[in-house]
């Protein structure tokens, strides 16, 4: 997998978070290669990529961070991981991925990219694994609301 594929997701994540939550502090961590299966933080949004590229993206965070981010995005304090938190975190992943696909479309001379509706998987001791490849590129975002790990596994469609 090419490292250039992950950058649009990272920049879209930073700009989307800052647009929804003005004043949010977001720092990009170091790129790493993760061997699947890897341990999830507990609240993972899965989005499939298809078209001229194929694969998936996973936005992983812990439950506390998910509730904090959703509370900020909704402008209200949400007490726990309810349906509104699930919907908000899924939509955050959808928007980041949609914006990133537009960047990739430009970057890759018009390659068309479709994305699936997001799925949110919540649970302790979950492992992230994949049938496409056993390697994910990972970039952590360190924020004042907690860490978000962006996992990207994309290749050109065969």
């Amino acid at each position: 997998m090419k490292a250039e594929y992950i950058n649009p997701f990272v920049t879209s994540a930073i700009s989307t978070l800052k647009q929804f939550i003005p004043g949010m502090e977001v720092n990009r961590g170091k790129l790493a290669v993760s061997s699947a299966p890897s341990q999830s933080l507990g609240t993972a949004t899965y989005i499939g990529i298809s078209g001229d590229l194929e694969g998936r993206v996973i936005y992983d965070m812990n439950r506390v961070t998910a509730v904090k981010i959703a509370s900020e995005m909704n402008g209200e304090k949400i007490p726990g991981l309810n349906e509104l938190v699930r919907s908000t975190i899924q939509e955050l992943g959808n928007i980041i991925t949609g914006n990133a696909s537009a960047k990739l479309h430009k970057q890759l001379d018009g390659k068309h990219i479709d994305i699936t509706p997001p799925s949110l998987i919540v649970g302790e001791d979950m492992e992230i694994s994949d049938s496409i490849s056993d390697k994910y590129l990972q970039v952590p975002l360190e924020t004042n609301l907690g860490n978000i790990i962006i996992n990207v596994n994309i290749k050109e469609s065969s």
Partner: protein
Amino acid sequence: MVVTTDDEHLLTLGNNEDGEPFKCAVVDDSAFMVKNLVRMLESFDAEVIATAENGKEAVALVEEHGDELDFLTLDITMPEMDGLTALEEILKIEPELKVLMVSAMGQEDTVKESVMKGAKHFVVKPFQREDVFNRLEKVLKG
């Protein structure tokens, strides 16, 4: 993007040809986005008469309420039936209905395809309140 009470009601779409508030529907699979769009549209003095969470529900919504609607906002990436397919089906039922696409899928070819299929305008998520208002003004009064 959250609408705050400070800026509510500073922007108003006014009335339709019947002298009534514009009537609309919101189609998006995200409850978070529906909540935000409904609140935003109501702050523009539009009346949201129905919502749907996928393309199939949107088509059913237009079959039932199409003749009452002045406009409809339509997401693209949705389960059951995506927004571009729903757009074609909706315009077969109500060819004059004004549809504003509201999607994170801002790829140039997707925007072009939407317009080719009959959408009046396209707003890319995440959006600013003024962006939605300005595009709606163009859609409704242009």
